């Protein structure tokens, strides 16, 4: 009797394991399918940023070249990125806030120029930063159709449509995010499975996920577009400092913005 019970238990464990393995397998297959279907719409966006810090009436510039991931959301080449990936002035201002007082005020500003879209085949298309939404951590980039490369590609960009993006997920479910690796990894498409840490409903709907790359598309486990990843930086936590506050901030730094919310802002680009 006892041995039968043990056998039953083992069988149950095996079944659970097999089920889990099967589930992982299905998600992995879906992830590969998403890479095949949408990988070309995930691009590298490069830009030159000049951050100007002003203290006591004096200003100093720091120039650097940045690369980030972008998601092409329209065949016209309209691309969404995380605004924080090209403008860190808000974060810097928050970090330096404790050092400021009435006598010593610091000001940070970032200018962006030389924006380029680097497509999956390596083609570089000059582009412009057209709209920013620091509130949602989004920025929209449009290719320069007058450029040599832009002319050839006008209206033919591989893209992920945000229309009909009403998919949702619940806490502890998996989401699949795509991304682009850096130059050292030949800018290959990357894919990762993230767990939904929390679903925040106020002040707006957000899906908090574990570590990912901001500006990338996120999908449900069954392959429906959930939204675009972005960062929610708690500047108050940065200002107050302290390890606990910083750890809290890190736990909720990456979010998925629902696709329809992103689409709503994207409409303003055309205007």
């Amino acid at each position, binding site marked *: 009797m006892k041995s039968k019970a043990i056998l039953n238990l083992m069988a149950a464990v095996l079944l659970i394991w097999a089920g889990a393995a099967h589930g992982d397998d299905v998600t992995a297959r879906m992830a590969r399918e998403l890479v095949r279907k949408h990988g070309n719409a995930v691009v590298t966006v490069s830009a030159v940023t000049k951050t100007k810090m002003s203290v006591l009436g004096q200003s100093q510039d720091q120039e650097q070249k940045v690369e980030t991931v972008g998601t092409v959301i329209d065949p016209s080449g309209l691309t969404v990125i995380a605004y924080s990936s090209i403008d860190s002035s808000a974060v810097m201002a928050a970090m330096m806030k404790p050092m400021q007082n009435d006598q010593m005020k610091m000001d940070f500003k970032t200018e*962006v120029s030389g924006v380029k879209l680097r497509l999956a085949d390596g083609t570089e298309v000059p582009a412009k930063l057209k709209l920013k939404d620091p509130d949602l951590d989004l920025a929209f980039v449009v290719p320069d159709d007058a450029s040599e490369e832009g002319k050839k590609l006008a209206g033919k960009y591989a893209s992920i449509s945000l229309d009909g993006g009403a998919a949702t997920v619940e806490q502890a479910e998996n989401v699949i995010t795509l991304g682009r690796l850096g130059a050292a990894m030949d800018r290959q498409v990357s894919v990762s499975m993230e767990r939904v840490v929390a679903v925040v409903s106020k002040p707006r709907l957000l899906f908090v996920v574990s570590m990912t790359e901001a500006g990338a598309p996120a999908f449900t486990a069954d392959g429906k577009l959930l939204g675009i990843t972005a960062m929610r930086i708690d500047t108050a936590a940065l200002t107050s400092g302290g390890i606990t506050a910083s750890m809290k901030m890190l736990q909720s730094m990456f979010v998925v913005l629902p696709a329809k919310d992103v689409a709503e802002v994207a409409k303003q680009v055309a205007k």
Partner: protein
Amino acid sequence: MQRLWAIGLAVLMGLAGCGQSSRSTEAGEPLGKELDPAIAAVYPALVRIWVVMAMPQEGRMQKFQAAGSGAIISADGYVVTNHHVAGDATDIRCDLPDGERIEADLVGTDPLADIAVIKLRLNSRRDPNKQLSVAHFGDSNQVRVGDTVFAMGSPAALSQSVTKGIVSNTRLILPVILPEEMMRIDGEPVGSLVRWIGHDAIIYGGNSGGPLVNTHGEMVGINEIGLATMSGAIPSNLVKEVAQDLMARGTVQRSWIGIEPQPRLRGTAGKGVLVGGVLKGSPAASAGMRVGDFITRYGESDVDAEIAEELPPFNRLVLSTPVGATVPVHVQRDGRDIELKITTAARTPMQGKDVELKSWGITVRDLTRMSAMEKKRPDERGVLVFGVRPGGPSGDAKPALQGGDVIVKVGERAVKDVQSVRQVVRELVAGKKARTAVLVEFEREKEKMLTVVELGDDPDADKPAEARKADLGIKTQVLTRPLAQAMHLEARKGVRVTVVIAGRAGQKAGLKAGDVIMKFDGSEIAASEPTDLEVFPEMIRRYPIGKEVSLEVIREGKPVMLTAKLEAPPPPVADLKRYEDKDLEFTARDLATEDRISGDVEDDVRGVMIEKVENGGWAQLATLRVGDVLISVDGKPTPDTAMLQKTVEEAKKARGRQIVLFVSRGIHTQFLELEPNWEMIHD
């Protein structure tokens, strides 16, 4: 950067010694008897020197403002100072002890001795006939340890001041434990020529170039460095010699034989200067000098170096040989005395001047004999890349240029120096507005590489619009539970209005500061903790602009129903009009509503906000600051950037000596004098 080492050293020393006594004539304290002749002879000839300099940094020449000291050495306005104060200055202004400010020009500079001579523009004085006080050189060979000396100058750019000390050492050199690079200025090893007069009169950053004066009122040195509590002055005999050359020819001619001398090794018998190295192709190599030889006689002088302090006089002997002279040099080799005949060559700078090639996004230098040798190159042809601007045309090239690369061909044409690069580029881009792709051949160590650089102006910064979202034109605080209880409110959620912005949707709806909003368009405002600060603004932002919404409000304990029509927010700061003046080097923008809400700008102030002031630019020299509100220019109001542009352009056309800016800083106002050098701007 090397220059900064020297300046940094002086600063370090000054900080370390700030506990010592120092006296200023302006302090009005009684002065010791021994000070009087020194003050009378030199103090009136002291000048505080303001300079604008440019240093290479990440592919750009970054301008900055600095201050130093100097002394007038002739009635016609020559001033001696340090090379690291004025040698690379693009603009020089001098303050005399009586407060008069006079512009000056660089006459000549010598990085190896760290001496420069500038000349005051006497014809620009209010009274060109007014006599200048002149300081005189003493004999630095007569200086003895223990002598009383006075360091005169402008520590930390303060007005002319005097500190007192004694001579601690008459042949101060850098200890071997300090890296040699610490005293390289523009690549030149200053310590190879100079043995400083060490003294303990405090000097500080800003004292550089100021005289060290003996009790007879003679200049026995020019202050240059500081190490801990010890200060170091370049002996006046060397300064005088260099200054005379600079005044006569604008340069100092020196000889080079191409050896690396060092003191004899411990335990070595006999005398002489040990030859540690002989550079290939040098005059010494051609004459047959070998590593390990001991030089015992150079020309007519016996020479010896048992310790490091004895090397600078030997170097000075070699350097001061007439260029092209053939000098008999005796060496000891394997116990034999050998006479060599060395024909000297002209010494050239260790490195070329830093130049920015804006259309390339790089800073470059010409190769000199020594820098070419250091790069193991056969000759001086080519252009050495020093810094590359990230994202600039060269930084964006594939492959990108890097510091240390040597450009040898541009557009398939060989280039021998910076001048020839400029010439080739002028021809290649003539008549083209767009960026021009140019094939560039460069050498990186042993590799011969090719790249394509798209030469041209930087693209303007993108000006993205900011997403427009509905706005009510109020500021609120969260109605926390304790607050609700204290206010005797039944509701425990909502927001309290703290500011109603005039003319905006909230005011039009009748909202008042102190109102508590409970519901927005029929929905409860779920804010009850301080962390819920964004809940209400986010509710508003999610509505379309133009939508009418109901507001359930508690005012003085009674319910009030209001209706508000949501509006687009005022233009964000990024979208405001700007005016950038590239000549005067500042940027201003129209005032934003946010400037007044935040309290940064008083309600009654009309003007433009100063947003950027270039480092070392004319506006910065006038002490214009980021955050100033510019109210008027030359008495004409500048309520917006359009008026500012018009007024500034008129002022620039007039090319007056100064432009008067009237600014507001918080509750304070101030007049500023902007004094651009029109000739330089025109260039």
